[in-house]
């Protein structure tokens, strides 16, 4: 058997969790000796192969994101929710306090800096918004939750190390954070 494969995806989020992952610095060399990064925003490969570990950064806010989350769930054995957006919904939830239609109108028509005299809203050209942005576990089963905005590099490294040791980790309280 070859090295365990990892696929990760950047959904409704800022990419900060992937940045934080890169902050594990030289340890990435050691990690790449043990695992294979397949489809990730870092490798820029878009289609998920069958992998041991799937990682989702971000909440699910539209049909495409929901689809990707389901697809990755199907193709991985262990699914990690990375960061506050994937775990709790995070900043994307700000829109949940308003109806989706109003959010679109606000973003595409009403904002002062927007020039859109005909009030055209995106329809076919962008994936349809879900009624609310939701944490990943509202759509698919999540095995490991790593909250944090972003989680510290050490926390991310700890989670991978534990999985490589064959354990399903929970983030210890002394390194857990929500901000």
């Amino acid at each position: 058997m070859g090295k365990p494969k990892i696929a990760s995806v950047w959904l409704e989020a800022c990419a900060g969790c992937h940045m934080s992952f890169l902050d594990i610095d030289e340890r990435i060399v050691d990690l790449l000796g043990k695992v294979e990064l397949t489809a990730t925003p870092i490798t820029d490969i878009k289609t998920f192969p069958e992998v041991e570990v799937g990682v989702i950064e971000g909440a699910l806010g539209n049909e495409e994101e929901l689809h990707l989350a389901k697809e990755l769930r199907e193709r991985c054995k262990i699914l990690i929710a990375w960061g506050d957006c994937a775990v709790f919904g995070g900043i994307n939830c700000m829109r949940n306090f308003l109806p989706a239609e109003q959010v679109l109108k606000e973003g595409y028509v009403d904002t002062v800096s927007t020039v859109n005299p005909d009030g055209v809203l995106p329809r076919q050209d962008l994936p349809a918004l879900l009624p609310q942005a939701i944490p990943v576990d509202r759509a698919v089963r999540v095995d490991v939750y790593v909250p944090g905005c972003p989680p510290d590099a050490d926390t991310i490294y700890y989670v991978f190390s534990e999985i490589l040791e064959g354990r399903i980790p929970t983030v210890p309280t002394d390194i857990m954070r929500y901000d």
Partner: protein
Amino acid sequence: MSDITLVIDGVECRAAKGDTILQVARRNDIYIPTLCWMEGLTPIGSCRMCVVEVEGNPKLLTACTTPAENGMKIHTKTEKLKQYRLQILELLFAGRNHFCMFCSQTGDCELQRLAIEHGMDKVRYPFLYEPFHNDATDPNIQLDHNRCILCLRCIRVCAEKVGAHTLDLEKRGWGTNITADLGKMLGESDTCVSCGACAQVCPTGTITLRDFVYRGRRNDCDDQVESICPLCSLGCRIKAYVRTGSVARVEGLSANSPDGGQLCHKGRWGLPKSTERDRLTAPMIRTGSSFREASWEEALNLIASKLGSASKAGRAGALLSELSTDEELSVVSSFFRDTMKMDKVDGFFGNMLRGFVKGFQPFADQGIRPFTGAHNILESDAIVVIGANPQEEAPVAASYIRVSTIIERAKLINLSAGKNPFDGITDADIRAALPGEMEKVLVSLREAVEGGPEPKEPAMAESARVLREAKKPVFVIGSSLAEHPSLVTEALNLAVASKAFFDDGLGVVPMLRGGNCLGALNTVIGESDWLSESELDFLYVLSTGMVDEDKRSLEAMTRARFVVVHTPFMVHPLVNMADVLLPAPAWFERSGHYCTLEGERRRMNMIVPPKGNLKGLSVIMDELAGKLGLELQPASAAPCENVYEAKSPSTSARTVSLKEVR
């Protein structure tokens, strides 16, 4: 006191009857998580974080409200409790907008801390996303209901410590909200005193203070220093948070002290706001309409030359702020009074203090301490406010009055020339112009209390009845009374007649605006008001820049030919009056002592080191003396703790004839 014994987590604990399980646990260093509970406030057991298991009881009990009983076997850390607490936290997070990433209080938040402590790595319940409004109507206090967990700490501190009772709950169930004045926005509230206590106790990001939010959270701060507020003679203890060398926020200190850790609006905003003002960092000498920077040597030489000739001609004076520390006042007094032999030394509040001193004198002559600590208002069963506006003069004393009246059911009587400052909660309100009518009212009340003729006017009759029945009345006298010393004496006479006797002195609380007024009495306050009529060649002004100067002082500065202003801030109009500006350390850069009304000599601590080209006051005075060929003499003033020392118990006080003061 240890009359019962119980076992908590296997530890045998002794306790007094009436202690709650939480109190016993904390005393024995057994940790029980809490959220709505707060030291000094009535426990309500609403958040359920402190639930514990008691053997033999099928229900979980809240440790904060359940009295400890003899023989109880309590468990605080079982798996079952951990799951319940986690569930409570998840429900709280699901209820409203508790997304930490865009909250200003993240890192300072008690809800967040508890959730992390309980390993909450997900929320298993559906988020409600129910929008609540964000009340930004108050200029200082922001109230975002979306982050509220309804712990009711703000409501309790507002009612129980500040006595304002501005905040309360509205609606029910999920829609329950904090509200001001039974349904107003906070900014429209008539009862809010803007003290910010609600924000100090808020465990989440619901109630925040605009000024402090972006100056740095508590946990971003590098240092915390305990000190005192210099703005009035109550000398409230403060905790200042320091971030990158400046004061980021100021909070009241201890929930266990009588003030309950509150600060008034002056302390809460005035102290930190002052750190943003323009500082004077080097000596400056006037050149026409502007100033040029000078060396200390040059500035002091100029001052010495002007002071030397002016003092020989008896035309030199010194005007000092009562917000200065005892040490500073003592050094200045030793220079001007004892070294230069000048008698023209006074404080900004000189006239007010002389008025009080004159009014107090007949009682001081009896060996009585003629006043008591303001916190004794809380022990009192009848409060008489005479010509005072405590909410302006010493706002925490106003809190004591409200709490005592509303919660402890003390009677409240107001005698004033103008509006009743406690409108709505007074039992009797009497209008009397100062001085004549007020004197008549005070005399007639005293006579009625002593068994004389009953006043006909209903409010007067009610007041006399209250004072006759009161066991521990307190008399709060305003600075307006000090303009008429006989009224001060008559107010004290009424206190004696009503048997307002406290352990530390007579039950009178004078409203003294400066933090170290009592310390100034024996060091700088002169015998007479020379300042009002002064035509001086030299005037030295020591200002803290924290309170506005009065007309009398400013006019005296305008008349003086040469004015030295020693101040931390470029304050106008003070700076406009100066011929020489000397930089002084600001309140957060000084250390020293303040003689407070509370009877303690409290220490002000340096919060951050002084900035700029500063010199210590004693060094300046020593150099000035040297330049004038003199040697700085030790201060002859007695230490301030001896001022109005109680030589006889207050119970031995007797009323005096007003002739003694006239």
